[in-house]
Each structure stands twice: as C-alpha cells, then as structure tokens.
C-alpha cells in the first residue's frame, strides 16, 4: 500500500523518505532517468556505436586504410553497405574505425575540460574575494573568444596528433564547467555542514574535495556529458578544415574533408560520416538532458 502511493506521487515520496527502506545513492536518479524516453533511446544508440567502435576489426573484414583503386566511389551495395570513398576504401569500415578516434577524443577532451574547469570553479567559488575576481575575469576572457579561431591557430601551429588535439580542445572548453562549479560552491559553502567542518579544523582542500565536491557532482556530470558532445563536434569541425587528425587515419570529421569535391558523383561519402556525428551528438545531448532531470530535481518542473 505504501509502496503503491510512493510510485504515484512524487510529493508523497519526500514525505515518506524516512520510512522508506534504505536505498542507494543512485536509485532515485536512475528511476527518474528511466522516465526520460529519449534519454534511454540515446543511451541505447551510444552503447551500439561504442560497441561498433570497439569491435570494429571483428565486425568488418576490410582494412580501413586499404585502397582498392578498381572500386573507387562505388555506391552502397551488399559488399560495401555505405559505398567506398575516392581511394576505394570501404566507408562502413572507416566509419567504425573512425568512431574509435572521434569518441576517444570526445571523452578525453571532456576529461581535460572538466578537470580544469572544476579546479578553477572550486578555487574561485570557495575562496571568493580577490582570487574569485581574478579567476572569473580570466574565464570571461576565455569565454568571450570564438574558440574555433584559437583552435585553428593552435592546431595549425602545434600540429595535430591525438594528444595535441585533446589538449587544445580541452583547454579551450573548461569555462562553462568553471562557472557551474563556482556557482554551486558559492551556495554550498554558506551551508552549515561546511561551517561545522571548519569548526572541527578541517583544512580548505579537504573541505573542497570531501565536503563540497560530492554535493556539486550532479551539475558536473551533466556538464561533462554535454562536454563530450561539444568536443566531438569541435574535433569533426577541425578535421573537416584539414587541421585535425591527419590522413590516412579516419575520423568522422576527416572523412568529410574530401567529400565536398566529390559530392556531385558520390553523395554517400558526404552523408554517412556526418550522419554518425549528428546521431552521436544528439544521443549524447538527450542523455545529458535525462541526466539533468535525474540529478537536478529542481529543474524538473520546467
């Protein structure tokens, strides 16, 4: 009976909280996440794409960089479900292998951005005053600049290996995370449990890491998921401009680089790689939206 009313009314849930059996930290967010159908669909797409990238060598018998000049720009067929490119390479195989690099760069660049952003935001939000003003001024400068311009510059100058691209993208996209973390730290540090910790003589770093950070985790996770989407888009744009990972290595962006020259005769070379970027990014964005609903209940009513 109590169980039934729990499920029907969210308000009742809060009231019965003390009576309900102990549930894990993730139980309630997971219940909310499951209600977001598009987020579930997005997760499914991401799992499939990730498996496709991981199992790429097993799924396709072609070599992604093997040229077959007799079969250049072949339209989609049973042998080549997505057709072949200007050097006769199998497009599907290149998409599977390209997914490895594109998704890897997305995740790694996001990790860099989240680390830097959390560090900046945590210090600014916790200490406040002059440190906060200086760090936020710096963040303002960084955020008010079209990042693609700087990316082009840095990629043109410092080359485009995977580590460079990861660092460059990561170091140019930490600003939103920094602002988020700062905002939640500022409101958190005014609360009594922080005061209590300070009274017990807990040092500032311990408070930041063990008391404040776990409470700010929700927005950070949401920002991180959206960060992966942003990084994948940025990498693909850079590669499209010829400044990303260099040939013959396939990434979804670099596959589009030559597509424009041959789109009149082989539109499939332009359509499929971009479709992969689009589907991945929209799936991540929906998952991020679901995570926001799940981890930040205040936003739920909107």
């Amino acid at each position: 009976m109590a169980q039934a009313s729990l499920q029907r009314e969210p308000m009742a849930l809060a009231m019965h909280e003390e009576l309900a059996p102990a549930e894990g930290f993730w139980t309630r967010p997971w219940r909310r996440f499951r209600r977001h159908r598009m987020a579930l669909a997005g997760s499914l797409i991401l799992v499939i794409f990730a498996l496709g990238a991981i199992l790429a060598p097993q799924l396709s018998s072609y070599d992604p960089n093997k040229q077959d000049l007799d079969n250049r720009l072949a339209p989609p067929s049973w042998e080549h479900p997505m057709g072949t490119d200007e050097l006769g390479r199998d497009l599907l195989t290149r998409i599977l292998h390209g997914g490895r690099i594109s998704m890897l760069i997305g995740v790694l660049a996001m990790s860099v951005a989240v680390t830097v952003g959390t560090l900046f935001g945590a210090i600014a939000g916790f200490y406040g005053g002059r440190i906060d003003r200086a760090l936020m001024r710096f963040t303002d400068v960084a955020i008010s600049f079209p990042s693609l311009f700087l990316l082009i510059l840095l990629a043109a100058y410092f080359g485009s290996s995977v580590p460079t691209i990861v660092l460059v993208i990561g170091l140019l996209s930490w600003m939103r995370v920094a602002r988020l973390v700062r905002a939640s730290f500022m409101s958190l540090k005014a609360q009594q449990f922080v005061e209590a910790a300070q009274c017990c003589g807990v040092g500032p770093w311990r408070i930041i890491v063990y008391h404040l950070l776990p409470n700010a985790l929700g927005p950070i996770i949401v920002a991180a998921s959206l960060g992966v989407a942003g990084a994948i888009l940025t990498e693909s744009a850079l590669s499209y401009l010829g400044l990303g990972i260099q040939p013959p290595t396939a990434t979804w962006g670099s596959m589009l680089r030559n597509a424009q020259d041959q789109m009149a005769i082989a539109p499939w070379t332009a359509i499929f790689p971009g479709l992969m970027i689009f589907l991945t990014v929209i799936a991540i964005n929906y998952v991020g939206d679901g995570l926001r609903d799940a981890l930040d209940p205040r936003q739920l009513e909107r």
Partner: protein
Amino acid sequence: MGKYIIQRILGTIPLLLLITFVSFIIMQSVPGGPLSVYRNNPRVTAKDLERIEKQLGLDKPLPVQYAIWLGNLLRGDWGESFAASRPVLPLVQERLLNTFYLMGASFLVALLIAFPVGILSATRQYSFFDHLATMFSFVGLSVPIFWLGLVALIVFSLKLGWFPAGGMRTIGASFSVTDRLRYLILPMSVMALHSAGQYSRYLRSSMLEAIHQDYVTTARAKGLSQRRVVYSHALRNAVIPLITIVALDLPQLFSGALLAETVFSWPGMGRLFWRSAMRFDYPVLMALITITAFLVIFFNLLVDVVYAYVDPRIRFQNS
C-alpha cells in the same frame, strides 16, 4: 546611467589589452617564430632573415614589440599581409562586411523562427507542437553546421538546382537583389537553424517562468485576454534573459560563420582566417583576432547597457 556606461567602457579596456597580448604571445611562440614562412624558403639567406627581423623589430623583447604593434594599430597601420602582399586593413574590411551580411541575415531569420516557436511551445506546454519544437531544438544543437551545409548543397543545389553551389554573387553580373538572395539563402538557413533551436529553447523556459509569476495571474484575474497576458505581460519579461543568451552566443556565431563560409565558399573573414592560419600569415591573423575580440566585447557591453535600460534593478544596484 551615464556613469554606469562609462564604468563599463573603462572596464573593457584591460580585457581587450589582455586578449590581444595573449594572441600576440601565441603568434610569437609559433615553432620557428613569426618568420617561419621565410625560414622555409630556400632563397632567403640567414642574412636576409636578420635584416627582415630588424626591419620588423623582431629582435626587440616581446613586451616592446607588443607596444610597437599596438601603437601602429592605433595609428591605423595594421601591417601588410605576407600572402597577399597588400595592407591588411582594406583586405580585412571587405571580408568583415561580407561576414556581417551573412551573420546579420541568419540572426534575423533565427529570431523570426525562435519567437513564434518559443512562445507557442511555452503556452502549449507538453502539447504535440511543444514536443516537436523540443526535437527541433535538439536537432539544431546537435547537427554539425558544415555537414548540414554539405547536405543542403547536395539536395538543393546539385539535385534540385534551386540555388548556386557557393559564392556570394554571380561574378561579372551587375548587382541585383534576387541574385544576392539566391546565394544567401542556403548558408543563411543553415546557420539560422542552428541558432533558432537554441534561442527558442531559452525563450520557452523563460516564458514558462514568466507565465507562472503572480503578476501574470493578476492580469488574468483582471480579465485580460490570453493574447494580452501572453504578449504584453509575460513576453516582455521573458525576453530579458534571452538578450544575455544571445550576447553570450556571439562567439559561437562567429565560429559557425567560419564553417558556413568554408562550405559555401563565402568570401568572409572566417574563411580568410582559416586560410591565413594555414599560411602562417600572422599580420592578418592578429588583425582578425583583434577585430573579433573587440566586436564580442563591444556587443557584450551593448547588451549590458540595454539590460540596464530594460531592467531598472541593475541600474540602481550599481549606482
């Protein structure tokens, strides 16, 4: 009000100096230095290099060089492009106007789409239309601009033949509005779709917030029509947060324009920037970075002022 504006203008000066100084340092830390183009040229001897270095003042310490560059900039001497061998300023000016033309047009179209979509999906929350609009904004947010451009080119230019495949106007033809429009529509729509999705989403959520405020309930209780309540009470207040979002979005708009210009061979400054970066043409790069930074900061300032004008609370807080 006047005092507030002056305060804000003074506040932007150190910001501008910082941005240009950082870009200057990046330019100088290119592997091989700013003269790397010449260094790779076998016909340029070590002696020539030294002479050029002295001529351009590159043997002086960095802060001094920066001061000289800044002084020249203020006097209207923006240097000369390495690649085009012509003064940077006129080169950049022309490209800048082309970019403004594209960005302005797509911005207007984005607002024209975003307003009705945002208002309707807020007033009919959770309706079929609202779900459709949400999907639209997720698509706009997630689609790579350059890929959307490619697909648009394949469909509307190659298959259907409705629009030209790139450029800004028919070369050699005299000016005509229809000709300009035919070239403008594809890049403009691609950029507009991207922004409209975001703007309508923000407008929806700020409209929802406004609709649930007490003064809106009061207006309803007084018997005002739904139309008046939505448009003259709720919308007015919902637009204020949108102004900030649009201003914050400006750097993204520049990045988007760069990609659209590349796909549609639009002779704008984004494409110029990309080509200059490939050729290490650093006087042009510095000029473009300075102008973009200036514009972004200027628009942020403008928005702050508009904000203070529409929202009196800010004015009083600061005075």
